[in-house]
């Protein structure tokens, strides 16, 4: 803010970020990592570069996402220069004896050889190694003289089946993106026709005049709205309600702090309540979908809403203790004037219908992504949203998520994710500890990084643990992913943790220590609650 303090010219930060990212990208191309496929090295390069870029932001985070897809298309796609027209080198095993074969040394990777199923598809096969040398002698009952063996285990196609570039591009329109787009459009309509403000004024009325209850009301309403609208827009809107209240209170009264702080907290927490509440949720759902695991809209709500309520109450109680108000009663000016124009009515109808269909997804079976096209088409067909409104939608958030999903794809199918987690023998740890570690790491990272990015980096790891089974029995992919998702959303320590926090900080009503105190408590309570839910409640909800 004050230029005296950031005397560092802007370009220094950018330069450092770019250089480090570049190093991250090049590193795996120079250094060989054991146990990592060729494609895995490429994916690692992209991963490191993306992580650095997302952390240091020399370029905007959504640009990094696009860069990720670009590099994937070039380096890892079927049509890219690396994998185009390439095929696995093959060799035939030479029978030495029954079930004993001779193969070139390059075909053997430790104790693994690779069967050449197709030109681009290999399959790993464990063999018993009898002798090593320029030629190796192995024993296996699973191959015969006609078997096609990959001649060089280091070939780039080994352990990796390249995917069409359309798959990477396709993330931009994956069902979860469409779902979010529908949500964005409904939210844009709500802002345009002041539906959010009017609902707020209606919902706040019953909360009376006692300051603590007003705060509770604010928090509940904020959480409800942010479940369907962006947390940031909800925060800004609720601030216009809270600020006039705060202005009337004396500067010394701690009620001011509570008013300003309760809103971002409630907005962040509320975002967990529905799949469309906040972008990290998209990463979770997309990753689970890719594994064939779906969570219906309504089911997600059933899973998350109790947690949301618990956390809201915990936050409310904390703030009550930390910032006791001195003012006694308060009169709120709540006038609602619902827009009655034709287009507004259309919005209400579409909004209601969409939410209804979403929430009842489990009952009727229509996927929420499909339902999302109802508002997408409906709102534009009826001109509820104009071309300008469509242009103003936060497309970069969709790109951010798309890039995250795409990165996840490569982390999975190049074996990078497994390689990253395989250094530790996770099955030694009880599930709860695992969940604690993931939750904690997610929480910590997303305090400093974008929540979506944190999810992007961590979810593939969890997925890979699930698919590879190295976490042992009792590992639930879904629950772990949900824990990570929750952890990403509960990070509210600092102004930089989430945009709602930054907005609240900028009002000048809060000092950083106030935010840290509350954020800290919520973080702790959050993790513990999530673990409790993960252990006791969620397993019941999940098939």
């Amino acid at each position, binding site marked *: *803010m004050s230029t005296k303090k950031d005397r560092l010219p802007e370009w220094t930060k950018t330069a450092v970020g770019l250089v480090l990212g570049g190093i991250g990208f090049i590193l795996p191309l120079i250094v060989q990592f054991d146990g990592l496929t060729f494609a895995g090295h490429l994916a690692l390069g992209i991963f490191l570069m993306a992580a650095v870029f997302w952390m240091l932001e020399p370029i905007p985070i959504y640009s990094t996402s696009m860069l990720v897809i670009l590099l994937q298309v070039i380096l890892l796609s079927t049509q890219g220069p690396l994998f185009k027209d390439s095929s696995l080198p093959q060799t035939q095993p030479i029978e030495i004896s029954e079930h004993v074969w001779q193969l070139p040394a390059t075909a053997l990777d430790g104790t693994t050889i690779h069967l050449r199923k197709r030109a681009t598809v290999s399959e790993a096969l464990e063999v018993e190694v009898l002798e090593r040398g320029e030629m190796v002698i192995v024993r296996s009952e699973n191959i015969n003289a006609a078997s096609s063996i990959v001649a060089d285990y280091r070939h780039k196609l080994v352990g990796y089946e390249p995917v069409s570039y359309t798959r990477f591009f396709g993330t931009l329109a994956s069902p979860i993106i469409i779902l979010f787009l529908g949500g964005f459009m409904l939210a*844009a309509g709500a802002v345009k026709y002041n539906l959010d403000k009017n609902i707020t004024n209606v919902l706040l009325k019953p909360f009376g005049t006692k300051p603590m209850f007003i705060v509770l009301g604010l928090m509940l309403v904020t959480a409800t709205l942010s479940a369907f609208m962006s947390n940031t827009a909800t925060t800004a*809107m609720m601030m216009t309600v809270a600020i006039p209240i705060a202005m009337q209170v004396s500067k010394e009264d701690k009620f001011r702090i509570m008013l300003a702080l309760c809103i971002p907290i409630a907005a962040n927490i509320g975002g967990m309540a529905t799949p469309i509440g906040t972008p990290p949720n998209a990463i979770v759902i997309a990753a689970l979908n890719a594994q064939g695991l779906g969570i219906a809209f309504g089911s997600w709500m059933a899973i998350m809403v109790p947690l949301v309520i618990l956390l809201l109450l915990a936050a409310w109680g904390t703030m009550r203790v930390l910032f006791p108000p001195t003012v006694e009663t308060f009169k709120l000016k709540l006038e609602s004037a619902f827009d009655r124009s034709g287009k507004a009515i259309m919005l209400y109808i579409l909004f209601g219908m969409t939410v209804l269909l979403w929430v009842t997804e489990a009952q009727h079976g229509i996927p929420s992504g499909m339902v999302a096209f109802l508002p997408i088409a409906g709102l534009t067909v009826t001109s509820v949203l104009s071309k300008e409104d469509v242009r103003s939608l936060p497309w970069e958030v969709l790109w951010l998520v798309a890039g995250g999903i795409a990165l996840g794809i490569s982390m999975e199918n190049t074996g990078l994710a497994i390689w990253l987690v395989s250094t530790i023998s996770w099955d030694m740890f009880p599930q709860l500890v695992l969940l604690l570690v993931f939750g904690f790491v997610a929480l910590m990272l997303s305090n400093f990084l974008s929540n979506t990015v944190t999810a992007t980096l961590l979810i593939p790891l969890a997925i890979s643990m699930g698919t590879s089974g190295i976490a042992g029995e009792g590992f639930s992919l879904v629950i772990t992913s949900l824990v990570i998702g929750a952890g990403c959303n509960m990070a509210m320590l600092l102004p930089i943790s989430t945009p709602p926090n930054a907005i609240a900080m*900028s*009002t000048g009503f809060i000092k950083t220590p106030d935010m840290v105190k509350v954020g800290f408590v919520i973080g702790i309570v959050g993790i513990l609650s999530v673990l409790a839910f993960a252990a006791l409640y969620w397993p019941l909800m999940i098939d």
Partner: protein
Amino acid sequence: MSQIYILCVEDEPEVLDVVVRDLSELEEVFPIEMAVNAEEAWDIIKEIKQRGDKIGLAVCDHVMPGQKGVELMIEMQKDPFTQRTRKLLLTGQAGLDATIEAVNKAKLNRYISKPWDPVELLRIARDELTTFVIEQEKDMLPYMAVLDIERIQEAIRTKGTISDY
């Protein structure tokens, strides 16, 4: 992120001191530059332009030696650098003709006659700077604390320039 300045132009030093003092609440976020005549004002404007910063609000008297306040503001309106600057005429004597010219040609935003109420001056300055920030700045957060918070929050809500991430 560029610095946004307040420029105060008034030829009598005692009055200038008082004006600056009345606006001192905004100073930490919007530094104040002082000029005793139009010539000095243009020097300051040039310096600020070279630094790559902006001028959010100009508070000018009319009756000054040399170029008068209204003429100064008309020229500021013509110069693209200061075109968007909010303009406030603070004067005890500007005839109706001069004021009409200021409104039409200089796109004068506010007129306050001397003697002025300090609370009112601060409120108006704050209001004008809020408008400037909402119109001109993509990132409104750093300025919010000393401006009209409600209006800025509403602008964030409707403009949608900040999204979740």
